[in-house]
């Protein structure tokens, strides 16, 4: 008779365990990562800049997985365009030698491709700054039918589930999904930093700028470039109107020239763009959202005129350009540009 009681007791315990298991729903996964600038200590009102840290402490397996995805054309709808096609790492993270985005789907893309280097430190993405995180930004180029034409995230997941399932699991993801794909790709892009630029070593007190560069640095701040191009990414952390002091356009306007107004719909945002980072600017020619400046010198002259109302002489331009070249860093120990002879 007590054996019967025991049986009831065990079944009760088993029912409890089942119940507990049923109640234990796995937490909803959230791969959305909020970007955080690394803490800065060196910036001062006189030197409003921060050197890039050596390492952001990202998961190396996820970085490697993201690299494979970044180079995989299967992300695109036609299976012919990979991220790396427009963001070549040996070409400054931009379209090699091209003024603007240029790939099989769109031979005359409207925007100059921003570099993928140091995107971890930008406060918004794309020229108009509609995206707050790299994860959000991925939907831009991937779903754009003129860029990668990936169709939908479900379609991308369907294409990549079989070849990538094992890799995702070994990187600690529960499998291939929109969230984990974005996470892996964004993690890789965050890893693309270029520390140890000469300017960073100068900020850390490890190197000196030569006379021309030092003069350029002084002008950079004195003329007013540094009011927008400041912080860890020497830009990339605010919006600014293109053409504060003068009309920036010496041609007929097209839609892309309205900048942030296309996002907010407000007149006051006309010609407002995200201020780009000047890091590695030496290797990311051409310049501006429309790629209208082929050289650094042209860019510096144009900027000082339309933004600052200042007319610089050749020596000043040369000095500022010399300073800008000190912003070229190294990716994985390899300088993005050869050291000047």
């Amino acid at each position, binding site marked *: *008779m007590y054996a019967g009681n025991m049986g009831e007791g065990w079944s009760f315990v088993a029912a*409890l365990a089942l*119940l507990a298991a049923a*109640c234990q729903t796995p937490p*909803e996964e959230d791969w959305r990562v909020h970007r955080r600038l690394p803490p800065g200590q060196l910036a001062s009102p006189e030197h409003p800049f921060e050197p890039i840290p050596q390492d952001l402490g990202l998961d190396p397996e996820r970085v490697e997985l993201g690299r494979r995805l970044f180079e995989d054309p299967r992300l695109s709808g036609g299976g012919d365009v990979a991220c790396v096609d427009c963001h070549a790492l040996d070409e400054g993270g931009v379209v090699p030698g091209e003024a603007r985005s240029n790939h099989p789907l769109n031979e005359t893309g409207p925007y100059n491709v921003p570099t993928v280097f140091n995107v971890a430190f930008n*406060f918004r993405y794309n020229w108009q700054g509609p995206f707050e995180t790299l994860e959000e930004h991925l939907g831009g180029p991937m779903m754009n039918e003129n860029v990668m034409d990936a169709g939908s995230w479900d379609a991308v997941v369907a294409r990549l589930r079989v070849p990538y399932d094992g890799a995702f699991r070994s990187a600690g993801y529960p499998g291939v999904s929109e969230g984990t794909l974005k996470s892996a790709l964004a993690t890789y892009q965050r890893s693309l930093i270029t520390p140890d630029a000469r300017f960073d070593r100068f900020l850390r007190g490890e190197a000196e700028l030569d006379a021309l560069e030092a003069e350029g640095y002084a002008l950079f701040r004195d003329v007013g470039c540094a009011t927008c191009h400041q*912080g860890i990414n020497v830009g990339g952390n605010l919006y600014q109107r293109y053409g504060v002091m003068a009309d920036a356009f010496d041609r007929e306007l097209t839609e892309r020239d309205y900048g942030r107004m296309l996002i907010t719909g407000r007149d006051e945002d006309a010609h407002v763009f995200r201020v780009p980072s000047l890091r590695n600017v030496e290797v990311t020619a051409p310049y501006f959202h429309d790629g209208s400046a082929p050289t650094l010198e042209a860019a510096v002259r144009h900027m000082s005129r339309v933004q600052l109302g200042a007319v610089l002489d050749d020596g000043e331009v040369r000095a500022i350009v010399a300073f800008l070249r000190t912003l070229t860093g190294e990716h994985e120990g390899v300088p993005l540009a050869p050291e000047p002879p």
Partner: protein
Amino acid sequence: MTRSSRTLGLAALLTAVALLAALASARAAEVDLDAHEAYARALRRTQELDARMDEEVARSRLRLVTHYDDLVRVWDETSENRAALERPPPHLDAELRARLMTAVTRYGETLDEKRALVERFKSDQAVLRNAMRALPRNVARRSEALRQAGDPGAAEELDALLRAVLLAVVAPSDAHVHAARGALARTPPSEALVAPHARLVLERTERLEQTVGRVMTLPVSQRAEAVREVYGVAHAAATDRAEARWLLVYAFGLGLLALGAGYIIVRMSEAAAALRDTKAKLEVALTEIELERDREAELARLKSRFVSMTSHEFRTPLSVILSSAELFEAYGERWDRAKRATHLDRIQGSAKAMSRMLDDVLLIGRAESGMLELKARPLSLPALIDSVVEEVRAVVGPERALEITRRGTEAERVWLDDKLLRHVLTNLLSNAFKYSPDESAVDLLVETDAEGVRLEVRDRGIGIPEADRAHLFEAFHRGSNASRIPGTGLGLAVVQRSVEVHRGTLEVESEEGRGTTFRVRVPFVEGET
């Protein structure tokens, strides 16, 4: 398992099911404390982050900070915190959750507004800084040029413009701003290095003051406070509900415990009762076994007594036969005829007595072992009685008086066991004559009716002492007053067994010294009369 324990078990099972259901509902309503802590932390952070945002704007406005990374950091944290607020803990009631989300959305909208203002502030602040830096230099350069060109008045105008603009920036009263605007209006448009910067300084200063004022006065804190209030209500409701559900679980749990305890107690008392029952049965069985053993012992005792008595009773006639036979052998030749006859009679009488005794003993043995069977056959009752009387007279002698009375119907033939009836009548009549004086008479009454026959034998002899009545029908038992009269003590035992086998009744009525009456009633064997 009895009904009460089964009912208790069923009730316990039902309570267990109810407990499981209550538990499931309690688990479903359970307050996720980690989620609550995280949410409460996010709520607390709203105020701190908003204050930091205002502080960063102010520091930037005062040019204590000349880069925007710190502002970006505060915004990042604010975005993160807002995302946390948009995912409230799962345990909230649907309606209150909807209210909470409405409050969070309003908070978010205010944040978006603030953000747009801060972004505009950043842009304007950058422009103003550059204009403020460029204006004095350009004025200095231009007035120098004007003075060298011989136009000190124009140079003076530019210097005045600069002073008016700076005064309007440093002390932005209506009068100062108005004066600065007037100075700017008087400046010729040809002053391309001065006028645009002066205009920018005035415009952006005014706009920045407005922007900063709006940034600082946006009701972000109030909206966050509203979220906090709604969440407080929702969380309290969820906590109350969870507590109520858990109370139900505890109630059912207690009920289950009580029922379980009751069940165990009932089952234990049942087991104890069953044990007592078994013990009582065992005791009864033990008693029966003991009785059986006593009976067997009695039987064995009877048997051994029977054997010893039988052998004792047999020894007397045997010794008579032996002695007469020995005498006959030694003196038979010399004895006269009469003497020889006497001894031969003794031998024959003893042998006959032994034979009778053996018959009686065998009959008693068969009766006691249940092997004496009723063997009825149709017979004539008067003929049977006459035959028995004749037989008895031959033994007791013709001088003894026997009074026979016959009553009732006299059927031709009745079904009876004639052997048994013979035993009964022979023994009763023999005894009546044997234990009464020679001069006294014996009465025999024979009465028949439809069912059976009644026999009554009355003597006027020595009677049966009270003490012997209990053992009257035991084999070899003899009355204490009968020791002088020869007998085997088997007669009445035979009578009693015979009546019994014939399913009849036997009564005795006796008075010591006055005589004895035996009454026998024997039924005809049924269905065969």
